[in-house]
């Protein structure tokens, strides 16, 4: 078996024709970057399970699907917008992308304070090109990653949030990615968050699909957190039951910066949420928490890489998953500490509840520590519901299903409670209740 999966995606073959419509088409630097990235993708191809980082997540089925590109005309797709009621809050800034295309009429931008840019990538390239360009170029030249290269070649719209030094964006920012294409479609959002020194912003991304529409979402998000700045970045993944979701978030943190990431991954047929955080300044803090829920034949992969390169950094990760049916969970958590990163504090915990015989988790914590004065720990457990606890609850009159639900909620509660109390916590509980009420297998 080769290290590559060769796919012949129709949209890739139509690059020349499609590229005229891409955001920023005609900007030389961007056209060149797209072209270089396309060549890179064609050279790299999709990774097979022979590649260590992809050992547990197989892209073969993805490679077989004849994906096309979302076109401007499909941006007004008849999304079930009642779903939106369950997302976000009334008072937030909101950008909406329908099948990857920016939808101005559904978006809503409250008056923005000076020093805050919240916009879509296409507009940002025209009006703030010099702010955006260095970030796009840096990330795109960085490494040999096929999916990153593909995203760069085909990047569609996405959100851009830039907060200047010292500014606090009080109002939360919501980014809605809604998808329901009628034929297999690939969507490549490119997002950018730049928080200047001592600034503060809170963002929540919702990736939601309807029914079982067939699509592949391949978002790349770059997050740059300046000195003493704080970014809270939450994400909910509830793609359609037939969707593929392969997301990468690349975070860099300056001195004393704080990034608080939260992930709820519950949808898609196959998903991989990859987060890389580089603590590149003294005393940077990174907190990543998350929940993954999967049933039937869903595949849910959470991959994190935390790199401590400077002294005094803290990172803390808690991921909990519940797997039912024949679902397959993957947790890969890498924490590396460079020789210079003394006094690093790095902790990671992964716990999975397996509700059925057919459910499976592959968990691979990896610590690479090259400094001596560090405190690092990792723990991973996988287990079933406790028979005695179930018996105790049922002996008090709860039926078997209720008792299981009570214990599952209790298992995840710690992670839900790690987010600030309020709308988002309620929304997480609603997602969990929804998931539970779809029925658990009885084994």
């Amino acid at each position: 078996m080769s290290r590559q999966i060769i796919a012949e995606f129709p949209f890739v073959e139509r690059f020349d024709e499609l590229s005229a419509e891409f955001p920023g088409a005609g900007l030389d630097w961007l056209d060149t970057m797209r072209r270089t990235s396309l060549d890179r993708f064609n050279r790299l191809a999709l990774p097979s399970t022979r590649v260590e980082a992809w050992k547990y997540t197989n892209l073969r089925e993805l490679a077989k699907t004849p994906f096309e590109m979302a076109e401007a005309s499909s941006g007004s797709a008849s999304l079930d917008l009642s779903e939106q009621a369950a997302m976000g809050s009334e008072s937030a800034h909101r950008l909406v992308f329908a099948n990857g295309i920016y939808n101005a009429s559904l978006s809503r931008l409250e008056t923005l304070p000076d020093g805050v840019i919240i916009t879509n990538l296409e507009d940002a390239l025209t009006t703030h090109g010099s702010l955006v360009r260095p970030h796009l170029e840096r990330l795109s030249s960085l490494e040999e990653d096929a999916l990153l290269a593909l995203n760069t070649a085909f990047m569609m719209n996405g959100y851009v949030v830039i907060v200047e030094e010292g500014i606090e964006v009080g109002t939360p920012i919501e980014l809605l990615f809604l998808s329901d294409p009628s034929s297999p479609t690939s969507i490549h959002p490119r997002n950018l968050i730049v928080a200047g020194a001592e600034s503060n912003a809170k963002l929540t991304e919702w990736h939601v699909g309807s029914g079982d529409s067939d699509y592949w979402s391949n978002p790349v998000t770059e997050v740059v957190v300046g000195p003493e700045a704080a970014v809270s970045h939450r994400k909910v993944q509830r793609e359609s039951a037939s969707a593929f979701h392969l997301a990468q978030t690349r975070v860099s943190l300056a001195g004393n910066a704080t990034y608080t990431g939260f992930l709820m991954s519950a949808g898609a047929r196959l998903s991989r949420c990859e987060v890389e955080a580089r603590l590149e300044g003294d005393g940077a803090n990174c907190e990543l928490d998350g929940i993954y829920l999967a049933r039937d034949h869903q595949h849910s992969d959470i991959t994190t890489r935390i790199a401590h390169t400077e002294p005094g950094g803290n990172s803390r990760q808690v991921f909990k998953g519940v797997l039912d049916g024949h679902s397959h969970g993957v947790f890969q958590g890498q924490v590396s500490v460079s020789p210079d990163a003394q006094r690093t504090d790095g902790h990671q915990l992964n716990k999975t509840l397996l509700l059925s015989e057919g459910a499976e988790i592959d968990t691979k914590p990896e610590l690479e520590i090259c400094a001596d004065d560090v405190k690092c720990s990792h723990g991973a457990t996988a287990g079933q519901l406790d028979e005695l606890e179930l018996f105790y609850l049922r002996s008090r009159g709860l039926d078997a299903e209720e008792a299981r639900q009570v214990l599952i909620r209790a298992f995840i509660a710690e992670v839900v409670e790690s987010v600030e109390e309020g709308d988002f916590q309620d929304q997480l509980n609603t997602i969990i209740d929804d998931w539970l009420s779809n029925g658990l297998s009885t084994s």
Partner: protein
Amino acid sequence: MLEIKNLHARVDDRDVLNGIDLSISAGEVHAIMGPNGSGKSTLAYVLAGRDGYEVTEGSIHYQGNDLLDLAIEERAREGIFLAFQYPVEIPGVAGTTFLRTAVNSLRKHRGEKEFDAMQFVKYVREKQSELNITDDMLRRPVNVGFSGGEKKRNEILQMALLEPKFAVLDETDSGLDIDALKTVADGVNTLRDPNRSMLVITHYQRLLDYIVPDFVHVLAHGRIVKSGGKELALELEKEGYGALTGTQAA
């Protein structure tokens, strides 16, 4: 109310109950005593319906129906309650939430309106203070970090809230200090009722001074080897189980 005939039960391929006959009428309190490992808790679990406690022979009828046909929660809803010898800790589930869910599932079964949070607090408050259970204990996760005595009091609180018809108390007295023993016994006595029966498992005659039984049985090697009135407990306290179990072995 409860009729056990020739009950044999097996746990993990081990025969633990070897032919128990016991009949309990409405309003009666029966005590079961017996050496460690004689099968007392096993009997309690079989009555509550725990998985893995397989009845290989015999029958149990409860209010005229075959008890063994009912699932664990159906038994609870029909009024069977087990106060556990070792109450189970449930991390992540707040005590009040647990109690309210339990009470409401029984109320629903009886066709009564479920309590909302406020109504429930009112309902619990009185019984809670009788048993010296603080609000703080109820806010914490079920039994987590409770002392032995607190766990036992919490079991009796559950019994008081669920108002069973047939209650099994498995060593509810062990681990209690003298005052707590009195509190718990008072709690139990309040629940004595012509329509409610109890099976009290204990090692100590002292509990039976407070909760005076109508009958006392001695269980050894999974069988009832002797039955009598409340004075049997005194006798056992003096002479131990030696003579009885010896007879059994011969």
